[in-house]
């Protein structure tokens, strides 16, 4: 596969790893305590575990798995809202497969489906719109989920629905924005991050500029990174070089995909349909100002939040669950009290155990085998 296989070449990876091992030796701070490097994006978390990279990295690097998995940060109350919508007899509820198993306070969408709700997995919001075309007698709701990468596709789907005059299509908008979230992490008193791997596909939409405050105001380096193993390793090299040199800059490793200015057409569509919410609730992180978007008034008729009477209750996460601390990097997944015990991929308490991008699930399934002292 072109643009894929080249970036999975084992020989080159070995070189990059050697370089990383050499570089950490040149960073004095790393000799005292491990460098805290956050991959903001769950896609990176997935690649790191999928290719077994973590155990190949030097002990001087500690990867902190950030909040960049839209499924993981979904609060329970929102899943309850999904279920409440799906339970309407005339609704076809469409969603990406990822969200099917996320626990609500009573049911996941998968449970709702098993109980008879018409819940369908789609690959694209356009497929959801197509279902709406095919079922004019049903209300078809799409569960919009994701950071800036996914927003344009949802926005363009709404525009298409508008253009065709489709009246039975609704968006339950749960899109979130990455910048306020990174800022919240940087402002958090209980953690220190030495540098970031930036989310490659978000960046392909928003470009480089929005990250500049990280370097300018917080003096941390960030590398916009691709998702193949070589992308991740090269980005680490770039990050370590900055740390060695005492620099704090925004660099772009993923130039083949990410234009410096982002994607104008995508941003235009997003701007047309969405506006910032005052605040949005994140699982484990609480409410973060301006961290979510909602449908603008001009497109209100597509807004599931207006169409359906939603319970919209703020459901506290189970007490035993420490997802928030894991999401902020305060503890490692395996340090959560319930990790691998009450909380497993089969019986997830938190969303981090559901998505294969979730840090807990990744550790549970792919984790450095030596980390896991679990009897399972």
């Amino acid at each position, binding site marked *: *596969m072109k643009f*894929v296989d080249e970036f*999975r070449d*084992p020989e080159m*990876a*070995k070189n990059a*790893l050697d370089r990383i091992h050499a570089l950490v030796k040149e960073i004095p701070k790393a000799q005292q305590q491990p460098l805290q490097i956050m991959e903001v994006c*769950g*896609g990176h978390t997935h690649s790191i*575990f*999928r*290719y*077994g*990279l*973590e*155990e*190949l990295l030097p002990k001087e690097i500690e990867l902190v798995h950030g909040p960049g*998995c*839209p*499924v993981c940060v979904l609060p329970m109350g929102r899943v309850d809202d999904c279920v409440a919508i799906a339970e309407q007899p005339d609704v076809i509820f469409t969603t*990406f*497969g*990822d969200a*099917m*198993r996320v626990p609500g306070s009573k049911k996941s969408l*998968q449970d709702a489906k098993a109980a008879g709700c018409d819940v*369908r*997995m*789609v*690959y*694209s919001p356009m*497929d959801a719109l197509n279902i709406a075309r095919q079922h004019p007698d049903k209300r078809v709701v799409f569960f919009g989920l*994701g950071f800036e990468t*996914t927003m344009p596709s949802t926005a363009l789907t709404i525009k298409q629905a508008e253009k065709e005059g489709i009246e039975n299509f609704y968006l339950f908008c749960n899109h979130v924005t990455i910048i306020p979230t990174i800022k919240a992490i940087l402002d958090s008193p209980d953690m220190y991050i030495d540098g970031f791997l930036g989310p490659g596909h978000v960046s392909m939409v928003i470009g480089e500029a929005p990250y500049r405050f990280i370097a300018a105001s917080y003096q941390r380096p960030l590398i916009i990174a691709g998702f193949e*193993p070589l992308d991740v390793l090269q980005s680490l090299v770039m990050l370590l070089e900055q740390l060695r040199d005492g620099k704090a800059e925004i660099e772009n490793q993923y130039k083949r995909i990410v234009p410096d200015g982002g994607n104008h057409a995508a941003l235009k569509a997003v701007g047309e349909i969405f506006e910032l919410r005052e605040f949005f609730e994140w699982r484990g992180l609480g409410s973060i100002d301006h961290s979510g978007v909602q449908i603008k008034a001009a497109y209100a008729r597509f807004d599931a939040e207006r169409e359906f009477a939603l319970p919209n209750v703020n459901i506290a996460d189970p007490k035993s669950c420490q997802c928030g601390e894991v999401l902020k990097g305060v503890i490692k997944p395996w340090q959560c009290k319930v990790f691998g015990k009450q909380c*497993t*991929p*089969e019986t997830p308490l938190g969303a981090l155990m559901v*998505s*294969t*991008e979730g840090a807990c699930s990744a550790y549970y*399934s*792919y*984790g450095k*085998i030596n980390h896991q002292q679990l009897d399972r």
Partner: protein
Amino acid sequence: MTTPKRTLKATHITMAHGAGGKAMRDLIEDVFVGSFDNSHLNALEDQARIDLAELQRDGNRIAFTTDGYVVDPIEFLGGNIGALAVNGTVNDLAVSGAIPKYLSCSMILEEGLEVAQLRRIVDSMRAAADAAGVAIVTGDTKVVPKGKGDKIFISTTGIGVIPEGIEISASRVKPGDKVIVNGWVGDHGAAILNARGDLALDVELHTDCQPLHELMQVMLKACPDLHAVRDASRGGVATVVNEFAETSGVAIRLYENAVPVRTEVRGVCEILGLDALYFANEGKLVAVVPAADADAVLAAMQAHPAGKEAAIIGEAYEGVAGRVVVQTGFGGERILDMLVGEQLPRIC
């Protein structure tokens, strides 16, 4: 029989075809007996009667297995649910080392099923049975109301005879044993995802549905002491290997780069974020063989059409009992657990 053979004139299945009366007799005699056509079935008794003496000529034990087939869609590139139902059960017999002999077939039809489609499926069953040297000797047909089924479900049950001395078991994997697969992994699962059409993918992918009884005999010839063999159907190679590791109390390591996966199957996996090791196969087996015999078995497999792309994909070792790991191209390892839930297409 004293009456002429009945013919089924209906174009679609109705509840009457399951009601025990004339319409059902028409269906059974024309479609099923007409195609499967063997003396056991033709007798239209409630049970087939098989001479024990005949069975004993081939071995000292019966293998007895059953599987239900509920695939959607029921027809797809390279096969249909009927071919699966025969080959699947033939394979569940074959992987024990048994020579497949007789099959039974229980059909659950949904009201409204097109009779022409049913005939195609039944004819595929007959063809698959002939190819595997088995006879479908007893059967049953039920019809459920429209919306209470999904066109057709088939449960086949097989009887085979295991030759004396063969002891293949999931519990016999030993550290050092090699893990072999007989070819491309994941074709069937990917072909069905594609055929289903929900995801609007379009790829020329055929099911790998095929009988494995001959291949098994070839393998047994190369190594009468095969330790463990199982067909990697639902749950895929990952599941079988996990079952082996768990049942035998060993660890197993797969070499990711050694697993044969077609380009198109990789494409499906990359697009949907799925793992071909969990995809169903319908003509693939995973064999665990003593290291000393591995090359001989591999060569024998590669010489048979059903094993042309066979490859050694892993090894058992003394490690955490039941653990399966995949060694990536970089030398890293990750755990390959049993599937949790279903494999769901993902975007993140």
